[in-house]
């Protein structure tokens, strides 16, 4: 496995910011701290989960908080920064707007999964109730299957559990996404 460096984490964030028209936080100490957190998480879990949120260590549970997380686009659009304030809008970058405080948009049920995800066996020994919750969460995962979604405004297609909050291509809202229901019939 290749070693993960701060440089790599920075390059990836810069490239991503550029692609989507965002900026990285202008405060160098804050930026350094955020990149270090991402690096530690990538080393620990195998993917760069959000440094400001508790990850479960299970990919299926953490998918929505792998940086850049599902909540970044709506948060930058609404507040001018993502939850951790790694990605910011142009106005914040240029100092025309103060660095905002961004409330947590991730639903509490999803946050809760981090407290019962890894090692079911250990959780089972803890409290009876935890066992039930773990089972319920696992069932839920089995039930959420990725689907094909398309943006009615620009035609962007994505394969995931839920449609994105904002279309990464044309910035249309979630409501503009519709599921593609395909049926393949083999005749004759």
């Amino acid at each position: 496995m290749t070693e993960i460096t701060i440089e790599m984490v920075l390059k990836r964030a810069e490239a991503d910011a550029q692609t989507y028209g965002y900026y990285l936080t202008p405060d160098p100490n804050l930026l350094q701290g955020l990149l270090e957190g991402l690096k530690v998480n990538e080393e620990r879990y195998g993917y760069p989960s959000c440094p400001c949120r508790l990850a479960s260590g299970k990919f299926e549970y953490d998918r929505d908080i792998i940086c850049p997380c599902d909540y970044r686009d709506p948060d930058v659009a609404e507040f001018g920064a993502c939850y951790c304030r790694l990605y910011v809008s142009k106005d914040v970058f240029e100092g025309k707007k103060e660095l905002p405080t961004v409330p947590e948009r991730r639903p509490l049920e999803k946050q809760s999964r981090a407290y019962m995800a890894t090692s079911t066996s250990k959780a089972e020994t803890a409290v009876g109730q935890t066992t039930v919750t773990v089972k319920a969460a696992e069932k839920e995962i089995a039930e959420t299957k990725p689907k094909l979604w398309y943006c009615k405004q620009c035609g962007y297609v994505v394969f995931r559990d839920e449609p994105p909050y904002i279309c990464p291509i044309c910035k249309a809202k979630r409501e503009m996404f519709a599921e593609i229901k395909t049926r393949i019939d083999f005749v004759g």
Partner: protein
Amino acid sequence: MPFSKVSGTNNAHKVVVYALSTCVWCKMTKQFLKDSNVEFEYIDVDLCEESEKARIREELQNKSGGLSYPTTIVDDKIVIVGFRKDKLKEALGI
């Protein structure tokens, strides 16, 4: 993992910080309290045992109504979510 204690001369209040070791805003909160000589306790929840996490979740959710980091609780009643210098100063009278 138990709570770690940081001593300080400003010890009139009971200050507890729920934090993540990877979170820069949590680090800033701890640093601000240290720089202000405030006595406090903290826990890095991501470094806790799995069995402990369930317990901490209950505790944090009961006290603050959420699961965000950092959450600072002053005297078991004032809840400050995020690194909010203004609110910390106000709550601690510093």
